[in-house]
C-alpha cells in the first residue's frame, strides 16, 4: 500500500473542485445551520463527552499507572487519581455542534475573503466517507499554517463527515477565549513536552485510545509535530502514531485507517512571520489580542488553496509481516509497555512513508518554479529569460512527477505575470527585469544590518516556496552532486557519494531510512529517462545534452551544501570548548550571514551529532 509506484511519473491523481464556489452563491448563515448528518462508523459506541472522561479515568490502564505512580511517589492513590482527573480536564475537548456552526459561519466569511478558491479532491472525500464507516480513522494533515486544522474541520463538516478531534499544542490554551472556542470545536490540548511524566502520558494515551476504540470521532494530528516554518516537511514524530496504532497491535481494533492529507497554499498566511522566526525574532506568543491585530491578513489576497485527501492507509496492511502482534500475548494489555525495537523501527518507517505521501500529493503552483529560479539568480532575470527557463523547469518537474497546478490554455508569460502579481511583496519588476527585493522598505535610512535583515526575510520567504518542490528534485539532485564530487564515473563510487550526501541530509529532507538503494535507482531512472545520463552496468556517464539539467540540480542543493559547510567551518575554527546548544545558533548567525536560517543550522548540528562528528556533553 505504501510501496509507491516505481515510476512516480505515472502516478494518477484525482481532480479538484472548488468548494468556495457554492459558498459564494448561497447564504453562509443558512449553511452553518443546515442539517448535519455525518456518516458514522459501523462499530460506533455512542458516548457523551462526560462519559468519555469517566471511561478514561476508570480504565484498567490508567488505574494501573495511578497505582504505580502512587507507590513510587508515596502520594495516596486518591491524590494521584485527582491529579489525573485535572490533567484530563486540562486536556479534553468539549466538542459541541453549536460552536462548530459558529466557526463554519465565520470561516465561510473569512475563507472567501482570503482565498480565490479552496480546491478539494472529491474522490478523496468519497474514499474517506467509505473509510469512516469501516474502521476508526486517523487524519494526518501536513502542517504549514494555523489555517490547516480549521480548514480540515470546515471541510469535514461541509461533506457530512464526522468532525475530528484534534491534538493541538498547549500554546493555544493561552489564547483565553479562542482556546476555549477551539476546545468546543474538537481540539484537545497537549503539553509540548512531558518526557518523563508517566501519569501525563498515561492520561493522554488512554484518552486518545479510548476515543479511537469507541469510534468516537476521527483523530487528527500532525505527524510533523509543529508547523513547518520552511515549507519543507519536517522529520515526523512517532509518539502519537504509536498511540493510535497500539489498539490494532493489541487486537482491540481490527484495523485503523490512516489518511494522509496534503494542504498546500499558494501564499502562506504566515509567510514573513516564519522568515523572521527563522532569523531569530521570537515567535509572537499566541494570544487573542495578537490574533485581532493579525486582522490585517484578511485584507490580502492569498490565491488558492488545495487540500488533497490521500488514499486511506490500513495499519493492518502496513504492519503485515513487520509487527508480530503475539508479542503482546504474555502481558495483560492494560500494563503499559515501551515499544520494542522492531515496533519503533516500524513506526519510524511508517511515519516517513506517510510524510512522503503528503509531500507527493502537495499541489505546486507556478510561483514555486519561479521562486526556485529567482533564488538561483540573485541579480535578477529578464522577464523573457525567466519565462523561458520557467517553461523548461516546468517540463523537468512534470517529468519527475511533480503535482503541478499549471493553468491549461494559458500562455506561459500570462501565468508568470499572474504569479508575480500575487507575490509582488517579494519582488521588484522594472523594465522587464525581475529581482527579489524589499518593495515596502522603510523610507528612513536603515543601518546596513537592517538592510541585510530585510533582504534575508525576502530570501527566506522565497526559499519557503522553493522548498515546496525540493522533494521532486531531491533524489536526482543528490545524484547530480554525487557525480560532481565523486570524480569518477564508476557506479560504486557515485553511489557511495550519493549515500554519504543522503545520510548527511537526512535531518534536512524526508529520506526514508533504509531506502538508499531505492532512492539511488529512482534518481538514475529519472535522469536516464530525461536523457541526462546513461547508466551502464558499472558506470554512469553524462550525456552531452544533460549539462544544463545537472547544473540546475546541483544548484538546487547548493544553498544547503553551503550552509552545512558554514556550520562545519564554524565548529572547526571558532568554537571554544564549552559551547552550549543555546548559544550555537546566534553564534553561527553572527559567524556568517549566508547561513541565516536557524532551521538549517539546527538540522546541520543534528546531522553532525548523528554522524558522531560532534559530541554532546552534559554539564
Amino acid at each position, binding site marked *: 500500500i505504501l510501496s509507491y509506484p516505481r515510476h512516480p511519473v505515472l502516478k494518477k491523481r484525482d481532480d479538484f473542485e472548488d468548494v468556495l464556489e457554492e459558498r459564494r452563491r448561497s447564504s453562509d448563515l443558512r449553511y452553518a445551520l443546515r442539517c448535519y448528518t455525518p456518516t458514522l462508523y459501523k462499530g460506533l459506541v455512542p458516548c457523551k463527552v462526560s462519559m468519555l472522561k469517566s471511561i478514561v479515568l476508570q480504565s484498567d490502564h490508567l488505574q494501573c499507572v495511578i497505582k504505580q505512580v502512587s507507590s513510587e511517589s508515596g502520594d495516596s492513590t486518591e491524590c494521584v487519581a485527582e491529579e489525573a482527573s485535572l490533567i484530563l480536564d486540562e486536556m479534553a475537548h468539549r466538542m459541541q455542534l453549536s460552536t462548530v456552526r459558529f466557526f463554519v459561519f465565520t470561516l465561510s466569511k473569512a475563507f472567501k475573503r482570503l482565498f480565490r478558491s479552496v480546491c478539494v479532491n472529491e474522490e478523496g472525500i468519497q474514499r474517506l466517507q467509505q473509510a469512516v464507516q469501516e474502521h476508526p480513522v486517523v487524519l494526518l494533515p501536513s502542517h504549514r499554517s494555523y489555517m490547516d486544522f480549521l480548514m480540515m474541520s470546515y471541510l469535514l463538516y461541509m461533506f457530512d463527515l464526522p468532525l475530528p478531534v484534534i491534538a493541538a499544542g498547549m500554546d493555544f490554551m493561552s489564547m483565553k477565549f479562542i482556546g476555549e472556542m477551539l476546545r468546543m470545536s474538537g481540539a484537545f490540548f497537549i503539553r509540548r513536552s512531558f518526557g518523563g511524566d508517566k501519569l501525563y502520558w498515561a492520561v493522554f494515551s488512554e484518552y486518545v485510545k479510548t476515543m479511537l476504540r469507541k469510534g468516537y470521532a476521527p483523530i487528527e494530528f500532525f505527524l510533523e509535530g509543529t508547523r513547518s516554518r520552511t515549507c519543507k516537511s519536517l522529520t515526523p514524530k512517532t509518539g502519537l502514531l504509536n498511540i493510535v496504532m497500539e489498539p490494532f497491535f493489541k487486537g482491540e481494533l*481490527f484495523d485503523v485507517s490512516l489518511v494522509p492529507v496534503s494542504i498546500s497554499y499558494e501564499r502562506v498566511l504566515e509567510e514573513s512571520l516564519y522568515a523572521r522566526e527563522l532569523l531569530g525574532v521570537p515567535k509572537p506568543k499566541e494570544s487573542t489580542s495578537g490574533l485581532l491585530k493579525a486582522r490585517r491578513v484578511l485584507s490580502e489576497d492569498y490565491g488558492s488553496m488545495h487540500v488533497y485527501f490521500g488514499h486511506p492507509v490500513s495499519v493492518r496492511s502496513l504492519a503485515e509481516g513487520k509487527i508480530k502482534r503475539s508479542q503482546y500475548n504474555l502481558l495483560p494489555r492494560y500494563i503499559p509497555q515501551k515499544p520494542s525495537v522492531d515496533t519503533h523501527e516500524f513506526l519510524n518507517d511508517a511515519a516517513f512513508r506517510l510524510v512522503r505521501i503528503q509531500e507527493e500529493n502537495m499541489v505546486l503552483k507556478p510561483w514555486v518554479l519561479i521562486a526556485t529560479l529567482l533564488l538561483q539568480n540573485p541579480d535578477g532575470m529578464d522577464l523573457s529569460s525567466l519565462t523561458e527557463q520557467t517553461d523548461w523547469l516546468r517540463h523537468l518537474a512534470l517529468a519527475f512527477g511533480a503535482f503541478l497546478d499549471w493553468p491549461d490554455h494559458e500562455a506561459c508569460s500570462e501565468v508568470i505575470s499572474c504569479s508575480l502579481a500575487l507575490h509582488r511583496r517579494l519582488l521588484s519588476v522594472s523594465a522587464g527585469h525581475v529581482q527579489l527585493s524589499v518593495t515596502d522598505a522603510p523610507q528612513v535610512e536603515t543601518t546596513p544590518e537592517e538592510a541585510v535583515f530585510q533582504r534575508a526575510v525576502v530570501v527566506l520567504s522565497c526559499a519557503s516556496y522553493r522548498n515546496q518542490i525540493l522533494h521532486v528534485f531531491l533524489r536526482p539532485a543528490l545524484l547530480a552532486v554525487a557525480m560532481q564530487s565523486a570524480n569518477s564515473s564508476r557506479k560504486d563510487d557515485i553511489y557511495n557519494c550519493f549515500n554519504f550526501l543522503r545520510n548527511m541530509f537526512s535531518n534536512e529532507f524526508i529520506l526514508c531510512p533504509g531506502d538508499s538503494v531505492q532512492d539511488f535507482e529512482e534518481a538514475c531512472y529519472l535522469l536516464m529517462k530525461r536523457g541526462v545520463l546513461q547508466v551502464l552496468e558499472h558506470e554512469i556517464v553524462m550525456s552531452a545534452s544533460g549539462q544544463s539539467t545537472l547544473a540546475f540540480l546541483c544548484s538546487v542543493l547548493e544553498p544547503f551544501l553551503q550552509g552545512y559547510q558554514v556550520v562545519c567551518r564554524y565548529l572547526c575554527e571558532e568554537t571554544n570548548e564549552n559551547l552550549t546548544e543555546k548559544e550555537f545558533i546566534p553564534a553561527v548567525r553572527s559567524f556568517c550571514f549566508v547561513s541565516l536560517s536557524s532551521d538549517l543550522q539546527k538540522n546541520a548540528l543534528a546531522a553532525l551529532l548523528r554522524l558522531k562528528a560532534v559530541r554532546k556533553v552534559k554539564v
Partner: protein
Amino acid sequence: SGLSQQVIIMATRIKYICRHQDEAYKLGLSLSFRQEIMKWNGWGYSDSRFLFNKKGQAEFTGKRYRLSGLILPSLKDWFEGTFGANLQHKSPATVSQVAVAPPNLNEPFIEDLKAAGVAASHDPEDRVFRAHGHCLHEIFALREGRIGRVPDMVVWPSCHSDVEKIVELACKHNVCLIPYGGGTSVSSALECPHEETRSIVSLDTSQMNRILWIDEKNLTAHVEAGIIGQDLERQLNEHGYCTGHEPDSMEFSSLGGWVATRASGMKKNIYGNIEDLVVHIKMVTPRGVIEKSCLGPRMSTGPDIHHFILGSEGTLGVVTEVTMKIRPIPEYQKYGSVVFPNFQQGVACLREVARQRCAPASIRLMDNEQFQFGHALKPQVSSIFTSFLDGLKKFYITKFKGFDPHHLCVATLLFEGDRGKVLQHEKQVYDIAAKFGGLAAGEDNGQRGYMLTFVIAYLRDLGMDYYVIGESFETSVPWDRVLDLCRNVKERIVRECKERGVQFPPLSTCRVTQTYDAGACVYFYFAFNYRGLSDPVHVYEQVEHAAREEILANGGSLSHHHGVGKLRKEWMKESVSGVGLGMLKSVKEYVDPQNIFGNRNLL
C-alpha cells in the same frame, strides 16, 4: 435379508483370517459393520442426511435423531439468504467410489501377521475409508473421486496383545503404522504422508471395544481404547453409570482417539476433560508398553508420563486400554437458554459465571449469526398454539424488551444432578444472567442449540451439494481477549474471502463454548458459496490459515481440543517454543527411533 447379504459381501473381503474359521465370520461382521452403515464421502450414517425435497423444503432423513423425518421450513430461506446459494445450482458428488493405486505390501510382514492370527485387509474400500479424517479438503476430494496416498493395508487387532504383536512385527519389517480410531480427525492427522515409501498399515482399533471391568468402589472402569463414545456411554448406562465425556463427535470418535488428541467434552464443567478423566493409560510403543504401576488418583513421580501420551496424536504408539473415572447417571437433566441483547453482555455474563465457579454442566454462548442459524433448524410446528406462543415470545423480546434481532444472542445451558440442586443452580445462573440483561428463553431453545452441534457436519454435506463449503475450528483464549478475538477473527474471515474473490459474504460465526477460570474456548463456523472460484479448496485453506494467524495474533491458542495433526504443525514451534518442541522430539526419538508411527503429526 439385507443384513445377511451384507455379511456375505463383507466376509468375502476378509483376506487374512484369524485363528478359527468360524470366528472369522463373526469378526467380519463387526469388522466392517460401521463402515457399511456410514457414508464413505461425507459425515455420519448413510441413512441420515439433509436434502431439499421436491417442494424445496429441507428435511432430515432417517430415524436416528430428534430431527430425523422432520421438515425444516426455514432452512431454505436461511441457506439461500446467508450464502446467496440457489437450489437450482447443484454441485453433487461426482463419483460413487475412488480408484486407488495397488497397495505397496510388505509380504514378510503379512506372512508373520498371518501366523500371529491378526485380521487384515487390503481391499480398496477399507483402505480409502481409513485414509482420511473429516477436514474439508479431504471430503471435497473424495466427492470428486480424488485421494492421495492411502494405507496399503488395514489390520484389526482384537486386544492389547494383538497390538503388541503388530507393533513388534512392524518394527521387525520396518512398516509404517497409523493408528485409526473413529476417523473423525479434523487436523489432517489421518492423511498418509505422501513422502512415506514404506508400506503403510492402518491400525484400526475398532475391535478393541470391550469394557473389561467396572470398579464401583473406586468408581472407575477399565475399557479397551477402541470403544466408540456412544457405545461406552450406553454400556455404562446399563450399569447405572456414565463417564460424562461428551465431545460433539461422540457418536463416532473413540476413547483412544480422545486420549491421543486431548479431547474435551461438552460437560467438562462437571466431569472434566479427558486428562482429568483418565486414571491409567496403557500404550504400546516400539520400545515396549508404557503404563503406571498403580491406580492412585494423583502422583508426584516426576513429570506425569500420561502427558506424553495425551495429545501424542499417534506419533508414539497405540493406546490400548484406559482406566477411566465413572459417575452414577445424574438423576435429573434440564436444558435452558438465556437471550442477551448483544454478544458483549453475554460474554460478560459467562465471565461472571466462571468467576463464581457456578457454571452448569454446559454453558455456551452463540453469537447472533449462530442464533439465527439455530433458528433455521426449527422443525415445522404442529399446532397453531405453539406458533402463536413463539410469535408472542419474539414480540416480547424484540418489541417489549427492545432487543435488536440483529444483535441479540443466546446462551444455551445444560444442568445435571439431583433435582433439588439443579433447580437451585438454575436459579443462581439465571440471577447472574439477569444482571447482564439476560432473559430466560426456555428449554426448547437450549436443546436446539445443542442439536446444532450434532447435525452441523451433516449440514456441511448439504452445503457441498449446493456450492457451499465450510468448516469449524476452535481456540482457547484469556477472558479479557474473548471479545476482541471473536470480532477480529470473524472480520478477518470476511475480509480474506472478499480479497480472494468469494462472490458472496461468507458465514462467519462463533460461540463461546466452554468456560474456564482463566479463559474460554471459542468455536468458529465458517462457510461460503464458492461459485465462480476455480480452486475453492485452496481459497478455503488460505482463509482458514489466515484465520488461525489472526487467532494467534490475538492471544488465542493453536488448538483447544481438535489437536495439531499436520494441518497446524507449522505453528508448533511458535506455540511451545523451540526448546519445548525439542523436548517432544527427543521423546519421539527415544520411543520410536525408526519412526514406525510415521503419521508425521504434531512434530
